């Protein structure tokens, strides 16, 4: 009996603990879920300090979000009358409902941070050159999708934060040139924030945006392989070319021996040698699993220790004072609050300048940055390469400005969006008008 159970266990788990090189390789290629990984990866790509495994952390968070999100769908009712009550039920009536919601919320906020850090890592290591530009652009879209998922997500509880975020968000859309009003009409499903609006954002949140993220994620992973792995590989390739005089041997096989042209394996094996590589199973699998478990535990502990915010039920008559966006949008709130300009008789609203134009320009610069990067290719795959010093400074400076705006917005803004230094008490405000 014990032997049978052991055999059964081996049947399912052998690919996680291969006992020979051959098993290591087959563990990847013969497994439906793992075969999109290469059988072998470079040691440098496995380094903690190079990639910091931020992409793995991001997808771990998204996996947690998908599972907890589907769980939450069993309890949440996307109706303006019942949404808030169903969140309260999750908090007080459903066993462990609060933990579920908390974990979803903290994983979401974590994902915004981790996806941004992932992008920063790519930028600081110059890992977007050559064919990797496609993946960089896909990554920017994924960052945008992450932010939209967060935005649509915190609208669903239909509390004060939700109502005023929708109101402000769709009014920013209205400031768009020519079709702004139309976009707002479609987003709201009418001209006022009501049931149609909630339903639309709900479907976006639980289906469209996650579907886009999962599809793009799959493409993102596929591209990593097509680009020959992480950019840290380029460092090895560059060294090899300098060290070795003779051309490295080119293996002549591809996966089925029939592929026209050269396959990725052939391309990379021209420069990479056995000593640069380790088997994905168990090395890559083990680290990826470790990352997932760490991330899962962090979000779970956060969920047990801290409650997800929930403001009072939505009340169109009264705007909370001050009404603050979540931290990752506060910098935008600071921008829309301070970018209205008056040019003689003309006024350009901050809703357009700070809410649409500036973010669009930032996004546009992000997308085309790899084309603007004229530094030597030897700067690729290294942290803070001296050749990219100025670029590093620009990215760090923009990030710093955003962080400063976030700190100002989160900690210093008081009633009527005025600055109150820490220690200065806020004036007593009437709670009803």
């Amino acid at each position, binding site marked *: 009996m014990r032997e049978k159970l052991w055999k059964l266990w081996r049947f399912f788990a052998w690919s996680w603990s291969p006992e020979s090189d051959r098993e290591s390789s087959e563990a990847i290629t013969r497994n439906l879920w793992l075969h999109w990984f290469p059988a072998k990866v470079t040691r440098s790509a496995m380094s903690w300090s190079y990639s910091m495994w931020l992409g793995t952390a991001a997808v771990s968070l998204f996996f947690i979000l998908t599972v907890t999100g589907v769980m939450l769908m069993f309890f949440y009712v996307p109706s303006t009358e019942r949404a808030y009550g169903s969140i309260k039920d999750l908090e007080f009536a459903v066993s462990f409902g609060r933990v579920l919601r908390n974990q979803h919320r903290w994983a979401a906020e974590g994902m915004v941070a981790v996806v941004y850090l992932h992008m920063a890592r790519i930028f600081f290591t110059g890992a977007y050159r050559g064919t990797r530009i496609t993946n960089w652009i896909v990554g920017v879209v994924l960052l945008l999708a992450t932010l939209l998922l967060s935005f649509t997500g915190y609208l669903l509880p239909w509390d004060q934060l939700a109502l005023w975020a929708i109101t402000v968000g769709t*009014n920013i859309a209205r400031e768009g040139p020519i079709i702004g009003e139309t976009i707002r*009409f479609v987003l709201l499903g*009418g*001209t006022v924030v009501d049931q*149609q609006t909630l339903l639309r954002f709900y479907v976006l949140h639980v289906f469209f945006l996650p579907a886009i993220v999962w599809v793009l994620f799959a493409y993102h992973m596929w591209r990593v392989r097509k680009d020959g792995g992480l950019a840290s590989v380029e460092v090895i390739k560059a060294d090899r070319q300098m060290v070795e005089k003779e051309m490295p041997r080119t293996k002549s096989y591809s996966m089925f021996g029939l592929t026209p042209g050269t396959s990725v394996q052939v391309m990379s094996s021209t420069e990479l040698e056995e000593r640069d590589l380790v088997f994905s199973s168990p090395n890559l699998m083990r680290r990826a699993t470790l990352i997932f478990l760490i991330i899962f535990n962090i979000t779970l502990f956060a969920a047990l220790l801290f409650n997800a915010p929930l403001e009072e039920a939505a009340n169109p008559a009264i705007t909370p*004072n001050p009404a603050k966006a979540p931290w990752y949008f506060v910098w935008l709130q600071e921008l*829309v*609050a301070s970018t209205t300009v008056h040019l003689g008789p003309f006024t350009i*609203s901050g809703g357009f300048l700070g809410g649409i134009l500036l973010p669009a320009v930032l996004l546009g610069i992000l997308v085309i940055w790899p084309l603007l990067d004229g530094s030597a290719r030897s700067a690729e795959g290294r942290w803070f390469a001296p050749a990219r010093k100025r670029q590093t400074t620009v990215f760090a400076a923009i990030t710093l400005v955003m962080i400063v705006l976030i700190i100002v917005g989160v900690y210093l803004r008081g009633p009527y969006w005025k600055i109150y230094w820490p220690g200065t008490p806020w004036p007593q405000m009437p709670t009803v008008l």
Partner: protein
Amino acid sequence: MENDRRQFLRLIGKGSVAAAFVAQIGAAARAFFPNVLYEPPTRFKIKRPEDYPPGYTFDSAHRLYVVKQDDAFHVISAICTHLGCTVQYRTVEFDCPCHGSRFKLDGTVIGGPAPRPLVWFDTAVSPDGFLEVDTAVQVVRGFRFTPPKAKG
């Protein structure tokens, strides 16, 4: 010649399938533009003129301020012209809690990001003696409405 006809018929065949596909996408997109809106009316009754105290009264159901000065009325929108939060009456001015816009009590902008003054709404009195506001009709700043004295 025969080939031309064949190609033409093929083009018609493939083209009609493609056209049907595009039309269907268009139709699906069109569905997102509602034809019927179940929204509150823009023209509604508020209280009777005599029910308002002098000065500024906030109507929370309609997000507007009813202003009574002597016996004349005017109605100012409480919706900030910047990004739509509800402005608050603070004795000498209106202030917005979202981005710090500031307005004079007649709605003109005195600070913050608001691009336009607060809107004044058309005000009348209904046959049964209630003040009536139409938020679809804007009136110029300085508009005053004096309801006829209620009988009895």
